[in-house]
Structure formats: C-alpha cells, structure tokens
C-alpha cells in the first residue's frame, strides 16, 4: 500500500492579482480568432471560429486539439482576438481618468515634484509598516488626489489642461474627444518609476494594459452550447456577445483597410466598444443594456460573478453535497437524545466508504453478499481507484478479489455518526453530529428534547442528514460536533436541550411530596426509564425514584419554578449526595433554555452524563404521566365571580377616567390613554393571577411549573383581552371618524377605539374579533419584514468576524492584528463555564 499517493501535500498558498498584458494574452492563447462563424454546414466547428476545437471541447467523444483530452479532463484554453483599434476596458475607466489627470499631458510624469516624491516614498514605507496595505492604499489615493489638483507640471513646467470624463467612456481634452488610441498613447508615456505612487505596478499592471488591443477569448468550456431536444444547438450568452464582437471587429478592420471615411470608422469603433463593454458588464450606467431578441437581458461576465447566485456566493462559498438525504421529521420519544431515526431507504442509498482491513473483512463481505437487502454494500473501490457497482453479475468476482486496501461503500448502520441539519442554519448548533438508528417508516425521527437548537417542530419541517466520508470528519462529528457535547449553548451558557411541556409536567408530578409509588409500579418505571436498581421496599416516593437518575456525588441547590410562585420551602430543590431531599423538578431545573440542573451537570460531569440523564428523565416523565396523568378542561379557565367583578370594575373605572380625560383638551391625551390601558392590562393580569386557585387547577399547574403557557396567555383567555394597538397607537383607521359603522363618529372612548372587553373563552363579538385580527396582523407583518433584516445583519457580522480566532496565548487575533489580549477579558468559554462565570 503506497500511503504517500493518497495524501495531498501541496496547498494553494495564495493568489496573485494583476492585469494581462497584450503579450501575455497572446502567449496564453491557443488560437487566434479570425471568423465569426461557429460551425460549418456539417456542424463541425470552424477553424479560427469561436467554437474552435483548440479552445477546448464540450461534446463528449471529441478530443481537444490543444491538450488532447476529452471533455472530462480538458480544462479549456483561451484564444485571442486581434482588435482593429484599441478599446477601453469599462471597468478601468475611473482609474484611467485618474491617471490622465494625475500625470502631465506633455511629458507623462506624475504631477508631483521630485522632492515631494522622495518624501512620499519614505512616508509610504512608514505607513505600510504601521498600518499595513490598507493604510498604504489610503495614502496612494491621497497622493493621486493631490496630483490631480496640480496645474503645472513640476518636471517640464508646461501648463496642464485637464481631461473631463463624460460617462460612460468618453474623455474630453481641450474640447475634443480623446479616443482609446490617444489615451493609450498617453498612458504609455507614464514613467515606470511613477507607477508606485499611482497605485500600480510596472510588472503586473502597466497603465496601457487597461486598454485592450488584444481581447482574450474565454474557452468554450465556460460557455458550452446547449443541445436542444430538436437537435439544434443553443449558444451561451457569452458566445452570442463574442460573435457580435468578432463580426464588428472584422467590419472595422475591412473598413480601415479599404480606406473608408473617418465617420464610418468612428461609428464602427464605437459599436465595437459597446459590444466589448456589454461583454464585460451589462449594467454600466448610461450604456444601453444588451438584450436577446426576446428582450431578456444577456448574462455577461460580471453577472456570473456577482450576487447571491454568482460565482462567489453561489458556487464557491456554498457548495452542493453528495451523500446527503432529506426528509420530513417526526418526534420519537423512545430514541436517545443523540440519535436520529433514519428510514431504511435512506440508509441503503447513502453510503459510507469503509476501508477493508483484516478485522472487518468478514463483516464487509457479508454486506456485499446482501447487496439487495439491508444492511448492504453497493460499491467497491479497488486500490487503483476504480469504482465498481455490486450487482448480481459482479458480486461473486468482487467477493473473491476483495482484500485489505479495498474500500467498500456500505449502507448506514446503527451507531454511525452523521450530521443532522435544519435550515436556516443560524448558529453552529443547527448542524450537529448524531448517531444513526435505522427505523421503519419514511421520516427522520428526532427526540423532542433536541428540537430547540434546530428550532424544529413537527408541522411538516424537513431536515437534512450528511453521511461523513472521511475519518477526520467522523472524528470531529463524534467528538466536537456531537449533540451530547453541545447541550449548552455558547451564546449564553444555558442548556438548549432539555425538557418541555409534558416532560416537565410529568417530572413535576413525580417529584411532588405526596407522590408515592408502590413497588411493582416502581419496577415498571425503572424498566421503562432504563435504570438498573434494586427495589426492596413496598413503596417509594417519587423523589426517591428521581434520585436514581442522579450521579451519586451530586450536590445542587436552586429555586424551582414552583418555589418562585409559591415560596413553599418544600418545593425548593435541594440535592445532597445524589438524593433529591426536597424540591420539585420543573422548568427552572430541567427546562430548555432554562434548566440550571442540566447546565450544572454538563459543566461538572460532561455531555455523556447529561444526555443520559435527559434521556432517562424524559422516559420517567412519560411513564409518570401515563400513570398519574394530567388533563385540562374548560372549567380550568373559570375565574371566581369576585375576580370577574373585579376585572369589570377595572374596565368601568378606566372607561370613566378616559371619559373625564376627553372632556378637557390635552394634546397628550392619546398617550395618556395608552398609558392608562397599559396600566389596566397590568391590573387585569394581576387580578386574574390572584383569581386562579392553586395547583389543583391543571392549567395553572402547567403555568407555574413552566411546562406550558404563562399568565400572559391566561388572562386574555379567562379574564379580559384589553386594548388592541396598531403601530403603537389605539386603532383609528377605518371610516371617517370611527373604526367601523357601528360606532358614533369621533367617539374617542375605549371601546370605539379597539378595547376588547370579552375574553377568548366566552368569545369575542364580531367587531372585537375584527379589531383583534387587525392587531394580530401587525405581528405577522413584523415577522416577515424582520427576517431579511436580521439575516443581512447576521451575514455582515459573520463576514466581518470570520477570521477572528483564539491564539495559543488566548489572545484573539485576525491574521497578525490583535483584537483582544485575552478572549473575553478572562479567557473563559461561555459553554464550558457557569454562564460565563467561574463559580466553584
């Protein structure tokens, strides 16, 4: 086995940028383009045409006449077109304009005196040493600006006539138009020694190279013709444009040769300039846009590069991936937190290349034998790199020849590490490593405890999996990206993975003081949760059962959600030596984006212990709920009469106050009314909260344990909805002086301006319903507008900060710039510490 052939030691060190000189263009050219014809009558490419086979091949079966390769290996080769007259490169026009005005119109030297130039040289070096390239560029720009303002040449003492630029590419000098040839002649005069002060380089960007005399013709491989169903060839936009260029150039050359009048030559010259301009960029200001016959814009070189679907953002920064799969997700409480349920179809299709060794050869052989079923192998790669499909006919051969060194592409197996992702991938927790669990069915299965980092729900969401193809990637996915090691978010140090809803209700019921479980039920519980323990007493308390999940040396204390509500000492969580002595385990300790116990476990015991804890906890909560149950009914929303009276009194009082406010004119009256309605909402909320009776109310129990819902959901349901606002004001649009025809004109009271007196349980009357819907719509619109704004900000931040990393001395650096001397001033990792603090 020759190991060295399998490793790449060369890397791209960098890219050098520069202008192509006419000589360079000719040198790298494989063919001079002489004909605007593409194909002859037989459909073969014309020699010297734009589809010349020396430019590369696009047809399978044809052989490139330059490199002798077929379509698969031929990279394509540039050609060149000798232009009859020089042509401006549009993108260089601003720079040419600078150069013309910064250099002398008679001797071509830069308009800065010798002594100043000497000073500038040392200043430039100093700035480069101190501020880097960017500072140097800024200084050069200053120099050019200075030179442009000088009116007498310090070298030949001639008075300067400045050139004016008429967009897009006409230079006016002394009232006359300078053509490209004149400009080129002036640029040629610029001294090599002056170039550094003009931001140019004599070897890589001579100013006259900004004007084409020879046009490089891109290879056909970047503009392949498309063969339509009818057998007709449809050419690429670039080829279309190039045909125009070649044709115009030919006509221009002929006219010059035959001595045509200057007017005609000028006109053709301008046309050629237009075609080359639109070949490069089809959106330059004041240049008419080149279009297809159908009126569609031609896609030019610039369009290929820029924008979201352009080369940079579309092709090179965002790549498409093989060995991936996508399906709808659905919840499965019985799979582990770090698992993902994969349908057999996917597992069969998406493969992992496993290298054959003496140890695994028998297992892989059995997979090959089973190529039609599952688990199976579908391809074999020989040490020579030949990929062979396993079929009925080849299976025996492959089985005979296979030996260590071969690679077998086998199906996904239980326990494989894959990446799991849901878009939009807003943070790194949107892509995490999971282990495979192959299941029946067609959806990807995910444990509901791990939905929050992906922001997934099960209303039709789809997610992607990626099967890793190299051992390095596998190691990273298993150790660094694994969901177990990402339970705590690096954003705030809180666990994103944890319990919600019924898991919390279940856990809270289990850890109530009064929960007693007899031995046989407890055995059921433990089996279901996967806990191994000996039971020898007739009854156990829920807290004892829960304690069996905990590490034996755990000591922990924290307020529970219930404690925050009731201040009952018994609900305060206190764990001593792995025993839950008192306290209710609810959202404050095990909830998503909340749970202090999970966070503590993660930091103290690591991801494996925490994920196992969450797994067992979820199951325990589930079986508790099946045993004890929790159910809500409409009477949970009944408030005592006294409370309802109180709420209506709040409304009546407010209404009276508004009426008295309106009697006296005050320019701030609207603001005051809004403030009053806000105060009323607070009062209604408090009254409602005081009205709900204790933990016997299941809805209230869910609220105080943090399982689901809050008083903000409850009070409009049971009490009173309150004022509806639109754009921070009371509702006021509609008919003249009133919201709907049901109100008196110019009545500024509470109800005519969108105060909803009903509650959701009793139902809103039609007008209230309408106004409430209007207010809700605002929230929906807000969401639609917000998404792109925050997406753009995210992109800008990522782009700006992507190169900041922690150096070996814990400083933060970008290249050789030091941003921080100590990351976050103390070097702590948010997700590995106690919410960014060091508490021991």
């Amino acid at each position: 086995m020759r190991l060295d052939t399998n490793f790449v030691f060369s890397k791209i060190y960098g890219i050098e940028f520069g202008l192509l000189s006419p000589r360079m263009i000719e040198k790298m050219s494989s063919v001079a383009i002489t004909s605007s014809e593409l194909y002859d009558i037989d459909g073969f490419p014309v020699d010297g045409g734009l589809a010349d086979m020396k430019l590369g091949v696009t047809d399978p079966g044809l052989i490139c006449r330059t490199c002798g390769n077929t379509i698969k290996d031929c990279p394509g080769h540039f050609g060149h077109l000798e232009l009859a007259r020089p042509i401006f490169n549009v993108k260089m026009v601003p720079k040419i304009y600078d150069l013309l005005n910064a250099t002398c119109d008679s001797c071509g030297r830069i308009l800065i005196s010798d002594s100043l130039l000497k000073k500038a040289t040392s200043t430039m070096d100093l700035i480069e040493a101190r501020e880097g390239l960017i500072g140097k560029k800024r200084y050069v720009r200053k120099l050019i600006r200075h030179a442009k303002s000088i009116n007498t040449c310090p070298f030949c003492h001639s008075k300067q006539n400045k050139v004016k630029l008429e967009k897009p590419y006409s230079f006016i000098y002394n009232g006359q138009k300078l053509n490209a040839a004149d400009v080129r002649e002036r640029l040629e005069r610029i001294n090599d020694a002056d170039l550094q002060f003009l931001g140019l380089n004599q070897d890589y960007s001579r100013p006259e190279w900004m004007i084409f005399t020879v046009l490089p013709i891109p290879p056909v491989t970047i503009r392949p013709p498309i063969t339509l169903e009818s057998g007709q060839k449809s050419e690429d936009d670039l080829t279309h444009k190039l045909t125009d260029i070649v044709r115009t150039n030919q006509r221009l050359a002929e006219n010059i040769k035959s001595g045509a009048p200057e007017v005609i030559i000028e006109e053709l010259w301008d046309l050629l300039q237009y075609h080359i301009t639109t070949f490069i960029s089809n959106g330059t200001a004041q240049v008419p846009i080149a279009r297809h016959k159908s009126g569609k814009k031609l896609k030019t070189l610039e369009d290929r590069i820029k924008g979201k679907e352009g080369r940079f953002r579309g092709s090179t920064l965002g790549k498409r991936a093989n060995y991936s799969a996508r399906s709808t997700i659905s919840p499965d409480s019985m799979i582990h937190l770090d698992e993902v349920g994969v349908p057999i179809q996917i597992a069969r299709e998406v493969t992992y290349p496993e290298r054959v060794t003496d140890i695994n050869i028998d297992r892989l052989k059995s997979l090959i034998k089973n190529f039609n079923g599952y688990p199976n192998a579908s391809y074999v790669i020989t040490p020579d790199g030949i990929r062979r499909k396993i079929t009925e006919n080849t299976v025996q051969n492959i089985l005979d020849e296979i030996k260590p060194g071969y690679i077998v592409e086998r199906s996904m197996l239980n326990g494989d590490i894959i990446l799991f992702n849901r878009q939009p991938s807003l943070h790194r927790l949107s892509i995490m490593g999971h282990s495979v669990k192959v299941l029946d069915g067609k959806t990807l299965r995910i444990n509901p405890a791990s939905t929050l980092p992906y922001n997934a729900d099960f209303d039709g969401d789809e997610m992607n999996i990626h099967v890793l193809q190299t051992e390095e990637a596998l190691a990273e996915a298993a150790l660094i990206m694994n969901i177990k090691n990402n339970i705590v978010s690096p954003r705030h140090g809180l666990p994103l993975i944890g319990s919600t809803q019924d898991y919390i209700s279940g856990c809270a019921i289990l850890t109530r003081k009064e929960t007693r479980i007899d031995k046989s039920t407890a055995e059921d519980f433990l089996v279901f949760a996967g806990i191994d323990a000996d039971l020898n007493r007739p009854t156990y308390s829920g807290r004892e059962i829960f304690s069996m999940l905990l590490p034996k040396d755990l000591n922990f204390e924290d307020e529970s959600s219930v404690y925050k509500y009731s201040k009952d000492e018994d609900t305060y969580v206190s764990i001593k030596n792995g025993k839950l002595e008192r306290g209710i385990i609810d959202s404050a300790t095990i909830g998503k984006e909340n749970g202090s116990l999970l966070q503590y476990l993660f930091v103290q015991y690591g991801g494996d212990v925490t994920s196992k804890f969450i797994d067992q906890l979820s199951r325990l909560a589930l079986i508790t709920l099946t045993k004890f149950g929790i159910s809500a009914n409409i009477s949970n929303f009944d408030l005592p009469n006294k409370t309802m009276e109180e709420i209506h009194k709040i409304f009546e009082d407010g209404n009276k106050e508004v009426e008295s406010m309106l009697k006296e004119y005050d320019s701030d009256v609207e603001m005051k009314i809004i403030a009053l309605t806000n105060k009323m909402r607070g009062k209604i909320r408090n009254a409602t909260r005081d009205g709900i009776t204790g933990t016997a109310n299941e809805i209230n129990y869910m609220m105080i344990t943090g399982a689901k819902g809050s008083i903000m959901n409850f009070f409009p349901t049971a009490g009173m909805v309150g004022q509806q606002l639109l754009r921070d004001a009371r509702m006021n649009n509609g008919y003249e002086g009133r919201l709907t025809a049901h109100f008196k004109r110019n009545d500024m009271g509470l109800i005519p301006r969108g105060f909803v007196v009903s509650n959701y349980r009793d139902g809103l009357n039609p007008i209230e319903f309408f106004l409430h819907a209007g207010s809700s719509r605002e929230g929906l619109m807000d969401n639609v507008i917000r998404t792109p704004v925050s997406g753009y900000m995210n992109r800008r931040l990522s782009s700006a900060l992507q190169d900041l990393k922690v150096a070996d001395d814990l400083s933060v650096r970008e290249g050789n710039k030091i941003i921080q001397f100590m990351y976050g001033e103390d070097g702590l990792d948010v997700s590995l510490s106690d919410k960014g603090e060091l508490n021991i």
Partner: protein
Amino acid sequence: MKIEVPKKYIEKFIEKYGKNADIGRLQAAYERSLITKGEDVGVIAAQSLGEASTQLTLRTKHTAGIAALNTTSGLPRIVEIFDAKKEISTPTMNIYLKPEIEKSKQKVAEFANKIIEIKASDVITSYNISLRRKELTLFFDKEMLRSYGFTLKDIDRKLSDIKLNTSIEENRIIIKDQSADSVKKLIRLRNKIINLTLSGVKGISRVIVNETEEKKYWVMTAGSNLKDILKMDEVDQSRTMSNNIIETAEVLGIEIARNLIIKETLETLENVGLVVDIRHIMLIADAMCFSGEVKGVNRYGITGESSSILARASFEVPLKHLINASLEHDIDEFKYVANNIISNQVAPVGTGSVKLISLDYGRKDEGKPEGKNKEK
C-alpha cells in the same frame, strides 16, 4: 503554557472559602473552563448575535409611561449600533448633576429648562422677503417672546453676533443684505436664521426629569450634545452619557465608545428579554474599535478591511475588489477562512489550525510535527 487565574476569581474564591483554601481547585476549574485554542470565536460571536436577532422585534415598543422618551429599540437599534451610524434616529442623553444639585428637584428642573434649545423658528411668527429693498423682515409676537423669556433686543443681539445688519421696528426685525441679488440668497439667509440657537444647548429638543429611588433627580433628553453639556458646571461628567456612539468616541475617546457599544447592545437585548453573553458583544465592539476609530460592521467598515481579497469580494461588490486588487498587484494569502473554503482547503481555524504529520510517510521538508493535537 500555564495561564493565571484572573484576580477577580481569586478574590471571590478567597472570600468564599477563606485564605487557606486550596487554590489549585480554582486553577483546575479555571483551566477546565478555558476557551479552546484556535476556536473561531468571531463566528461564534456573530452567530450568537445573529441567531438572537431573529427573535428581536422590529417595531419600537415603548413600555408605556408618559415620562418615557421614545427611543429606538429592538432590531433597528442593534443594526444602528453595528453600522456605527453618525446620525442615529433617536439620540438621547442621561445627564447626572453634581451631588449638591441632584437632590433638589427644583434646581434640576431649572437646569433642565435651561438646556432646552430654543431656535429662532420657535419665536418667529412670520417673515417677509423683499428683493427690491434687499431685506428680510421677521415678525414676532411679543406675548410669545415674553413667555420664552426673550425681548426683541436679545434676538437682535444674537443676529448681530453673526454679523448681520439689523434694525428693530415695533415687533419686527429687519435684516438688510446688500449682497443679495436673488430670492434664493435671501431664502438661504432665512434658513440660516431659523436654525439659530437663541438659548439652551444645540440639539436638545426635549427634557424629562427623572427620579431615582434615593430621591435624586436626573435629566433625560431627546437630542444629544455631549461636548457642550459636559462643559457645564452643574454636570457630573463622570456619569453623564449619550447614546450616540460616534459622538462619544469624538468627545470621550475610543475606549468609552467601545464600552458604550457593549452597554447599548446589552441593554437593547435585555429589553426584549434576550440573553447574549457579554464576551460576544465585547468581541464585536473590540473588532469595531481596535483601529482607534469606530468602524461599522459593513462594507465601508471592518468587513471591507478584511485582509483577504477573496473574503472581501465574496461579501459585497466582488468586481470592485478584484479589479482594484489586480491594479495594485495584491496577493491573497490563503490563511483565512473564506479563501480556503473557496479553494476546498481546510481553513486554519479550530481543528484546522493544528497539523499532525507522520514522519514516516510525510515529506522530509514538512519538518517536525507542529503543535499538539487539539482536544475539546
């Protein structure tokens, strides 16, 4: 390399466990909690804020109360901060006064009224332009003038200060301008006069006196003018601040501006109930400020100054960057994230920043194994 535990943690540790406690325990906990070397903390900071910002509100929601000024909040404010905008949409100042003044509500209110800017446009009732006589006539209501505490003479003096030829007639001030040869010029003169500050501090349009729990009073303003306010004798310079970051950088320096970015961002996020660790915001603020001036997170600011041409080109306006690079003969070294992604190479961050080379099979000139393998 051993990294020392920061003092604040040692002090806390000693306070909790006493002087004789084993400091090694703290050292161990500290080392366990350290950031991994090579970690791409920039991206983590960007994602922490970016992910959180999807949950921010777009509209300004003021939490009631007549006394509260309407300040930009939520996502627009965050965008404004990171853009390093010069003109922010709702500049405000929190002005704290010297200890002897701040206890008296009356004195604070007096101060507050003093700093409100009164412009000429507030007292001028109407005006008249005459091109024939080359003059501009301003009309005043004497009653209104008195309510603002001015006399015509005061205004006349102010106008004379900016070298205008003025005369008073009844309730009018006539300004003669011999050089005026067009109505346009006179209108320009009128605009200049209208924006004239007659009293107060320029830019302060509203003031609100607030009370703290300790019965102390402070002033909140709409509009910001840190430079002039800090010059006033009554003001406690150490506590007074503006929410305009660029202005703060100019008046108080880059360090304060950096702290202000952190404070404003944290407060904006807190208002919406979002938690983002201060480290991430610190990093962004440091990246914005480390050059010595506040630079925005956009193509004119820090993103546009990335060392890698391909990174800049892949952000916005790619052609501009490529063309400039070719004119200046720039070299893009592939030691950054974006260009290595583009070229399908391993970016030198995280696990990519360490190499493991097997001497048996590796080429000799690759040298000895570099660094240790990284663990997380």
